[in-house]
C-alpha cells in the first residue's frame, strides 16, 4: 500500500522533471529543520530517566513557570493596548501612519541583543522608565517585571500586526450597516468588528505569547534573575554541557506545545 503510493508518486515525477528538481531543492531545508530537531528528540529517547528527573527538578519547573507566566502577562498587556492600536491602523488613514507602523515593527528587525541593551538603558534604576517605577517600588533589573518588559517589547509587533490584518478582513460596510441600524461606533466595535476579528486577534495573542516564552537575549541582559527557562537552559549548557541542557529544552518545548494545542482546540470548539 505504502510502496504503491511511492511508486505512483515516482511515476508522476518522471514525467515532470521540473517538479522533481524543485522538490529536490526544497527537500534540503525541510530535512535540515527536521533532522536538527528530530535528532534532539531521538537522542533523548535513549535517556528517558534524565527527562523524568528534569520534570521533577523544581528549579527547572520554576524557570519554566516564570517564562510562561511572564509571557502570559506580557501577552495580556499587548492585547489590552495592541487591539485598539491595531483597529486604528486597520481603519483610519492619517499622517505618519506608516511611521507608526514602522515603529511598531522595529522590535522584529532590530538585533535582539541591541534591544536588550536599549531596554536595560531605560529600565535600570536610573533609567527614564526605571527611575519613576523605582520610586513606587517596582524594580525591573533582575526581577520579574523586567522579564515581562523584555518579552512585551520583543513580542508586541506580532500581536499588533496579526490583529491589524484581522481587522482589515472585516468589511467596513458591515460597520456602516450596523451604524445605520442605530448602533454607535463603540457598540458596532463590540458587537460586529471585534467578534469577527477575534480569530485573528487570538492568533496574534498566541504568536505574541510564544515569542515571549522563546525570548532569551533581551531577558538575559535585563533580568538574568529570576532565571526564566531559556536562561536556565543556557546556564545548564555552559556549566554541564549538552546532555544536561537537553532534557530541560525538551520539557520546555513540550509544555509550550501542549499549551498551544489546548488553546487551538478551545478556539475551534468555540467556532460553529
Amino acid at each position, binding site marked *: 500500500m505504502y510502496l504503491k503510493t511511492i511508486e505512483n508518486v515516482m511515476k508522476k515525477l518522471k514525467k515532470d522533471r521540473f517538479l522533481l528538481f524543485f522538490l529536490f531543492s526544497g527537500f534540503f531545508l525541510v530535512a535540515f529543520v527536521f533532522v536538527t530537531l528530530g535528532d534532539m528528540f531521538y537522542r533523548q529517547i535513549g535517556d528517558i530517566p534524565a527527562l523524568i528527573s528534569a520534570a521533577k527538578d523544581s528549579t527547572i519547573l520554576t524557570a519554566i513557570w516564570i517564562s510562561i507566566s511572564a509571557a502570559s502577562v506580557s501577552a495580556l498587556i499587548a492585547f489590552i493596548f495592541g487591539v485598539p492600536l491595531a483597529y486604528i491602523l486597520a481603519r483610519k488613514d492619517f499622517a505618519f501612519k506608516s511611521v507608526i507602523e514602522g515603529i511598531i515593527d522595529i522590535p522584529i528587525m532590530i538585533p535582539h541583543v541591541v534591544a536588550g541593551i536599549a531596554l536595560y538603558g531605560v529600565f535600570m534604576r536610573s533609567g527614564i522608565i526605571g527611575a519613576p517605577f523605582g520610586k513606587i517600588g517596582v524594580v525591573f533589573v533582575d526581577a520579574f517585571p523586567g522579564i515581562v518588559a523584555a518579552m512585551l517589547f520583543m513580542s508586541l509587533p506580532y500581536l499588533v500586526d496579526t490583529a491589524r490584518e484581522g481587522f482589515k478582513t472585516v468589511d467596513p460596510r458591515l460597520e456602516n*450597516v*450596523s451604524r445605520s441600524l442605530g448602533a454607535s461606533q463603540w457598540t458596532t466595535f463590540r458587537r460586529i468588528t471585534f467578534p469577527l476579528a477575534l480569530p485573528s486577534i487570538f492568533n496574534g495573542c498566541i504568536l505574541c505569547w510564544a515569542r515571549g516564552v522563546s525570548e532569551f537575549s533581551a531577558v538575559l541582559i535585563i533580568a538574568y534573575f529570576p532565571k526564566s527557562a531559556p536562561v536556565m537552559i543556557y546556564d545548564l549548557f555552559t556549566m554541564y554541557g549538552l546532555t544536561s541542557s537537553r532534557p530541560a529544552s525538551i520539557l520546555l518545548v513540550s509544555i509550550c506545545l501542549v499549551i498551544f494545542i489546548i488553546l487551538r482546540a478551545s478556539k475551534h470548539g468555540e467556532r460553529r
Partner: protein
Amino acid sequence: MITIKNLQRKWKEFNLKDINLTIEKGEYFVILGPTAAGKTLLLELIAGFYIPDAGEIWIHGDNVTTVTPEDREVGFVYQDYALFPHFTVKENIEYGLKIKKIPKDKINKESQAMMDLLGITYLRNRYPTTLSGGEKQKTAIGRSLMLNPHILLLDEPLSALDARTKAGLQDELKKIHNESDITIIHVTHDQTEAMIMADRIGIMMRGEIVQTGTTLEIFNTPKNRMIADFVGTENVLEGHISKKIDGLAIVDIGSSEIFAISDLETGSKVHAFIRPEDIIISKELQETSARNNLETKIKKIIHLGAIVRIELDNGLVAFTTKQSAEELELNIDEHIYVSFKTTAVHIVRR
C-alpha cells in the same frame, strides 16, 4: 423630502462634484449610471457614513450634514448584502431593535412579522453563508426595514441575482414602496431595472448628476450624446439645422435631410437621436403620417429572441418583432424603406 445642495466629496478614485438633487417624500428614485460614477459614494454620504467635503444634505427639513449615521433613521442595503456573518437570519433582522433595547418579546413579534412578510421565516436559524443570493437580499432588506426608516437606500440591490429572483424581488420592493410612505433611493447601472422600478430617474456620470426626469423623459430625450450612449440610444446622427419651416427643423445629415421638431435656430450644429424601435421598415414606399422616408439596404439581421435587430446601410439600426420580420421576409442586401415620425427625432445641440 431629501435635498442635496452643492455636495462635494473626494474618496479614493471617486470624486463627487457639486451634486444638487431633490427627492420627494415617498418617491421611488433611481440613480442610474455606469460603474465608477460615484453612485455608491453618494448613497453613503446620504446615509452619513462619510462627511462631505462641502455642501449640505437635508432630510425632511433638517440639515443632517454632520449627523452621525445612527441618528439619521436611514436604511441601507448593499449590493452584496453585508449581512453580519456571525448572526443568524433572525439575529440579523433583530439587530437594530436589540441595539434600541426593545423588550425581548416585542422584538420577537416584530421580527416574526417581518420574516413572514418576506417569506423567509423558514430561514430564521440559518447563517448567511448558507443562503442563496435572493435569500440574503431579502434578509438584508428585512433588517433595514425593521426600524421603520423614513428613507431606504439601495445600492445595486438586484445586480448579483439571477433573472428570476430579480423579478421576484422587484415586485417585493414595489409592494413595500406602495404599502408605506417610505422614500426609496435605488442605485443601479441597469437601464431595464431603472425603467421597471423608477418613479423618477437621475443619471449619474463621472461624479455628477447629469440629468433627472421621468423614465420617458430620460430615455426619449437624453440631454446629450454621452447620456444617449449610456441609455442605449442606438441611432445618433450628426448634422446641422439647414432650414426651419413652421416650427419644423430640417436637419442636414450629409447623405440626406430629416425632419424634426426643435427650438434651435437655423445653422445650429446638432445631434439627432432616433430610438431603433421608432423606425418602421417596409418594402415599398408607403403613404404614412411619418414625414421621414429614406431608402436604404439591409446590412445585417440579428435575431435576439423576442426582437430582431436590423442594421441598415445608412448606419441606422431598427428593431422589429420576430413576427413582422418573418411577415416582411427580409433579406440581407435587400432594398427597403425606413420611415419615422418627426416627433421620434430628438434634437440636441452638440
